[in-house]
């Protein structure tokens, strides 16, 4: 987690330094990434789902207008988090909500978007792994494990026999297990 965060911080920071120098492509990449983080952050805290996009846009505009206040010697995620938190406090104030905002640090801000990102990464890994299976194995797995059909239903849907489905599920799972185990051992 911390290694990922540090690498992420370094990436974002170099994008921001390039943006301060006027690199629009780097800036676009930075803002898109930050948008994801902000959406996760505000979704958890704003209370009102319809306000999330407004808050994200307000924060992005604030980042834009105030981008000269980022000191490249300081952590960028902390800078962004402080702006997001400021906009959230402003939102609470405007809506006269007496919500107590936890004094969380930017580590939690980073974590805010991680569950969604983690799931997306897992999905990506699974898709990649499934692509290496044979077509009957992949189909059997998709029908029984992803769509949740019974072996009989899967057999009817695919037009194969019940035993063929069972064998393909078994072999497919074994292949996936070997693949992920092998990658874990090598990483």
């Amino acid at each position, binding site marked *: 987690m911390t290694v990922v965060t540090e690498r992420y911080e370094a990436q974002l920071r170099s994008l921001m330094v390039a943006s301060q120098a006027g690199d629009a492509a780097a*800036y676009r990449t930075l803002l898109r990434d930050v948008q994801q983080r902000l959406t996760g952050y505000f979704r958890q805290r704003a209370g009102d789902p319809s306000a999330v996009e407004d808050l994200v*846009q307000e924060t992005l*505009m604030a980042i834009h207008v*105030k*981008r*000269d206040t980022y*000191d490249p010697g300081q952590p960028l995620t902390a800078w962004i988090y402080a*702006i997001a938190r400021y906009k959230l406090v402003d939102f609470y104030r405007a809506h006269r909500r007496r919500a107590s905002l936890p004094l969380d640090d930017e580590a939690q801000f980073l974590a805010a978007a991680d569950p969604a990102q983690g799931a997306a990464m897992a999905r990506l890994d699974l898709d990649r792994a499934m692509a290496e299976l044979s077509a009957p194995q992949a189909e059997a797995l998709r029908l029984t494990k992803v769509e949740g059909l019974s072996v009989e239903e899967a057999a009817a849907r695919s037009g194969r026999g019940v035993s063929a489905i069972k064998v393909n599920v078994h072999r497919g799972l074994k292949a996936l297990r070997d693949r992920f185990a092998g990658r874990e051992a090598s990483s």
Partner: protein
Amino acid sequence: MTDDLIERLAEDLEPVSPRRPLRRLLLAVGVAAGAGLLAFLVLPDLAFRADLVAALHGVSFWLKLAFTGALAAIGAWAMAALSRPAARDPGGPVFAAIVWSGFAAIALAVLAATPPADWQALVMGETARRCVGYILLLSVPLLALMLAVMRRAAPTRLGRAGWACGLAAGGLAASVYSLGCGEASPVFLVIWYGLGIAATGLTGAAAGRWALRW
């Protein structure tokens, strides 16, 4: 929708210097000092002390300027820190208290060396009310300037940022006023100058909560 916004912001992108907020702050401090000196031309009741040149050779003149200048510098330094999001609080109030205590120690030493019958003159001087009043008067436009500069930056702790603006403005106003003030007593300095600067700091903290919103 947000994608459109990102596209527009990227098209609008121009190079910026991360040193710009600090340069702007230093410029504001210079302008504030200059504007404060202008008050000597504008306000009929305010004049450079007649013995200013002679006073340059005395200790009390520099003692006053050191006191007010140090507090102004702490204010400006805290402003620089608090104008950035996620800035660590530099502990400005602590340093301001240390400076005040140091000068208060000098004042106590002076009192201890003086017969109690003369304490009244050391404490009240001849211009106590005028001193506080002028420092507050001079600090109003300076505080407005400091708050405007702070608002252009990105403070996220508005009360503290406002306090730093007030300390800088009060310190500058008091520095300017000291050029027209003939009081020599350190006791007078820590009480009345201290009071004027502290009041400006508190005004800044109160005003900052709404004046600094962005």
